[in-house]
């Protein structure tokens, strides 16, 4: 009797689990194409543009290209890891490859998340999450030489707490917040982590000397600070939500304020000067998996969705405007976007392909 009841319970749980997994894969969803204006691909970063770092003062954007993620073996990584620069004042539709000098490991530089800090003397210091071909992780600090247009290696930091780093936010000349998007180091392990829901990622704070765990057993993908530095936005991408936290740097404490359900997998964030959050999302999980699993195949692509999110004062609610949606033929697997030229243009980044530069000819403040 008890055995039968247990069996029925287990069956019920499995059915509910299968259903939830199918929903998470977005089985009943598709994307309908639309653009905010004329769009063109940006030449240069053909292997990806997973994250951007915008330097408002200089009106340039750094682009991290060629991300490596859970490779099955070294030989899978057939591309180079590079950093590009895009001039936002000219319509070149071409990004410049920036040489990086004096790296500790030239062959093992595959950049992921980016952030920057402006030094006292005005130098732009880049913070880069880096993976090697064998998926070993580090944070690399580079100073940008404006005149010679190259990046100089300052320091490479490795730490046990950089379990599987994804994004980074600079909080000082030598300190930063770092997000771990999970714990597994193999594709299979990651699949188990995602399906079971037992996430082993989280957020870490490196104060210049040592690391502190701020959040554990979570999935944390893109992270960004509000312009006043008091609020941290975290992408809980697998749960299709954005977590909003108050950040106290002195006390090194993170406290949850709210969680916004987006019903789509938003990757990285950019907070504009009007406090709107811009993000690139993956709206249909099942359609992007093939592309993620086989990045070298140029015939595969994944759908994209660019959202501009406006939070209410207390962050309990958010208005969402869809700036662009694409089945992947123009923009494949978008991760990030930001507006420039007073909101009249937008640049969109993707996991494994070219960035796309669009004009914005439609109103975005609708309510």
């Amino acid at each position, binding site marked *: 009797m008890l055995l039968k009841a247990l069996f029925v319970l287990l069956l019920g749980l499995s*059915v509910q689990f299968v*259903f939830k997994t199918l*929903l998470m894969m*977005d*089985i*009943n*969803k*598709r994307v*309908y*194409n*639309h*653009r*905010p*204006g*004329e*769009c063109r691909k940006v030449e240069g970063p053909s292997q990806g543009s997973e994250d951007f770092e915008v330097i408002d003062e200089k009106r340039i954007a750094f682009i991290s290209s060629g991300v490596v993620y859970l490779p099955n073996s070294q030989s899978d990584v057939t591309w180079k890891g590079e950093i590009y620069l895009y001039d936002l004042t000219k319509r070149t539709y071409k990004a410049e490859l920036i040489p990086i000098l004096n790296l500790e490991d030239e062959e093992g530089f595959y950049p992921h998340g980016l952030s920057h800090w402006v030094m006292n003397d005005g130098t732009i210091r880049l913070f880069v999450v880096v993976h090697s071909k064998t998926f070993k992780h580090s944070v690399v600090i580079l100073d940008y030489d404006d005149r010679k247009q190259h990046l100089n290696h300052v320091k490479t930091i490795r730490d046990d707490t950089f379990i599987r780093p994804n994004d980074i936010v600079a909080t000082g000349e030598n300190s930063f917040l770092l997000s771990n998007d999970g714990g597994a180091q193999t594709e299979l392990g990651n699949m188990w982590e995602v399906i079971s829901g037992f996430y082993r990622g989280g957020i870490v704070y490196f104060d210049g000397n040592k690391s502190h765990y701020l959040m554990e057993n979570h999935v944390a993908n893109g992270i960004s600070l509000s312009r006043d530095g008091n609020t941290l936005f975290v992408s809980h991408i697998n749960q299709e939500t954005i977590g909003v936290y108050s950040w106290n740097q002195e006390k090194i404490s993170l406290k949850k304020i709210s969680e916004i359900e987006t*019903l789509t997998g938003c990757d990285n964030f950019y907070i504009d000067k009007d406090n709107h959050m811009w993000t690139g999302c993956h709206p249909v999980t099942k359609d992007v998996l093939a592309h993620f699993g086989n990045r070298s195949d140029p015939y595969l692509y994944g759908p994209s*969705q660019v*959202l501009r999110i406006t939070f209410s004062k207390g962050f309990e609610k958010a*208005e*969402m*405007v*869809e*700036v662009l*949606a694409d089945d992947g033929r*123009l923009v494949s697997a978008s991760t990030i976007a930001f507006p420039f030229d007073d909101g009249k243009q937008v640049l969109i980044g993707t996991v494994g392909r070219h960035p796309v530069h669009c004009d914005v*000819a*439609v*109103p975005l403040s*609708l*309510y």
Partner: protein
Amino acid sequence: MLKIILVAFLAFLVQYSFKVLLTLDVHKRTYNHRPGPCRKIEGVVNGSEDITISYEKNLAFITSGLVFLHSESSKTENNGEMFVYDLSQRTYKAERIPVKNLEDSEFLPHGISHWVLKDGTVRLFVVVHSKDFKHSIVILDYDEKNRVLNHVRTIRDDKFVRPNDVLATGENSFFVSNDGGCHSNIGNILEIATGFHKGSLVHYDGKNSHYLLENTATNGIILSNDKKTLYVSFIYEETIGVFDWNVGKQEIREVSKIETLTACDNFHVDEDDNLWSACHPVLKDAAKHLGNHKNKDLHSPTQVLRFKFSEDRKFAEIVEVFSDEGRFTSAGAVATSFDNGKQMLIGTVFRDVTHCDINISLDF
């Protein structure tokens, strides 16, 4: 033996509930975006379920005051109305036009179509329900000078089982789409839930009516500009059927079926032969609002899609022109473009009309 049947039945039930939840669009939502500045049109408040555009006269005719099914919530004190909107000027105000000499005093219009007579008169074909949900097709001629609609003829037919849309094929002939068979709320829900639809597609040739499709739920219907292709919305299947229409033989032949994964309502064909439709992207939200439309706090998302068909009509490029959670445009049922694709009107099942500019290119 009994155990096996029980297990099989349980498995069927589980699979069915899963399908129902997916069809209701759980775990789906809409995100807002517009192709340009949009404004509401004054004058129309009780719905604008269908719109037909006469490009020749630069006018849009709008039906207002829909009644659906014979239920308490449908009982309305108001009569339905017809509106005309001048597309050549940006008045953002629709004009109510009187309908003269109707046979029945109760006039609650639904789908609409038009045909231009040899002398240039615009002849309107309107699906009309009475307050207790009896049906007819009413033919009205538009008197441009006096701005009035004159009753020509009211046609009743056994085959107009539960008409939704009408489509003119000549001065006196037309298609009628029946969106189901049942006249009660419960009956309708059963029809949808079981998939045993009792709707149909009918053609009236001026004297007699013929069934062209049966046991299916058809909603919006429209012809291509050359009148040779018929588009039919199979709203519950979330597909659009494309048919060859042979007016001489009064026959249709299926060419293709486009899967949209959204419930498209009424249609419009623009100057370039693109198909436009307003669709209900999240069915659970649509059901709530449409089932209780007097409640002003409820609304339902709107999605406007433009379809550009390939030469062989087997494939269509779909562009989402407009999307709204429902707070601005609720339960859009029809979208009509004009001014060569630079402007658009969106009609809604139970609310007002939205007039948008389209400041972006939709061809890419």
